[in-house]
């Protein structure tokens, strides 16, 4: 399938960029004129993925996060990548309520939210190498 449009951006792993990333992703997807509910789901999922990279990937130290959005006729693919710590046990990380940072009042719901709010979620990660999150969302429901 041929993409209709594509964008890629990179930014520092600062918590203030969580809002930046979700606003940019939603603005890009808005050109496909999806419903407000779909845009809200995308904003939330992007926020979760970027927050994970800031807190867990780079452990609140400075690093680069990249975000790519590929727009197709009927769906969008969003890829968020860091080159931080990586995830030891992906299955465990995906479990609702699992968190390695209860000290930060983390709810352990990040991946559950991404899974619930998007149509697909793939996690590629290796300790010491980083984490790549690939999510898709249907923009047109027939």
């Amino acid at each position, binding site marked *: 399938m041929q993409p209709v449009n594509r964008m890629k951006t990179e930014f520092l792993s600062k*918590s203030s960029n*969580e809002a930046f990333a979700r606003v940019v992703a939603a603005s890009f997807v808005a050109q496909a004129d999806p419903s407000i509910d779909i845009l809200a789901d995308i904003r*939330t999922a992007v926020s979760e993925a970027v927050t994970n990279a*800031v807190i867990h990937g780079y452990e609140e130290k400075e690093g680069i996060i990249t975000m790519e959005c590929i727009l197709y006729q009927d769906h969008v693919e969003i890829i968020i990548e860091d080159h931080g710590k990586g995830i030891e046990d992906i299955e465990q990380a995906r479990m609702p309520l699992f968190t390695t940072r209860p000290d930060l*009042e983390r*709810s352990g*719901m990040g991946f559950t939210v991404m899974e619930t709010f998007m149509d697909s979620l793939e996690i590629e990660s290796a300790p010491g190498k980083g984490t790549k999150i690939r999510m898709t969302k249907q923009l047109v429901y027939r």
Partner: protein
Amino acid sequence: MDVRFKRDGTALIAYIEGEIDHHTSRILRERIDSKFIVEPVKNLIMDLSRVTFMDSAGIGFILGRMKKVSSIGGKMSIRNPRPEIMKMLKMSHIDSLIKLDA
């Protein structure tokens, strides 16, 4: 993000405005906790009518305040969440732990 307070008997009402994510929840947590401790109150009401975005950091933030409030024998409740905020609250089943006035 901003928060304003009002006291209603034994309850502190926190009117939160703006977006709740990992970045803003740290600031909110500090402001609410420091206000709660100096006021002669034991219950906390969070008014979310002006919250336009909340991700799972908001869930952690709400549960954290709930633990603090229940540790002194108080109760916490949430008021007026918008539909998109309600979706997050329902998903996390927080509505089974905290009184929710829609």
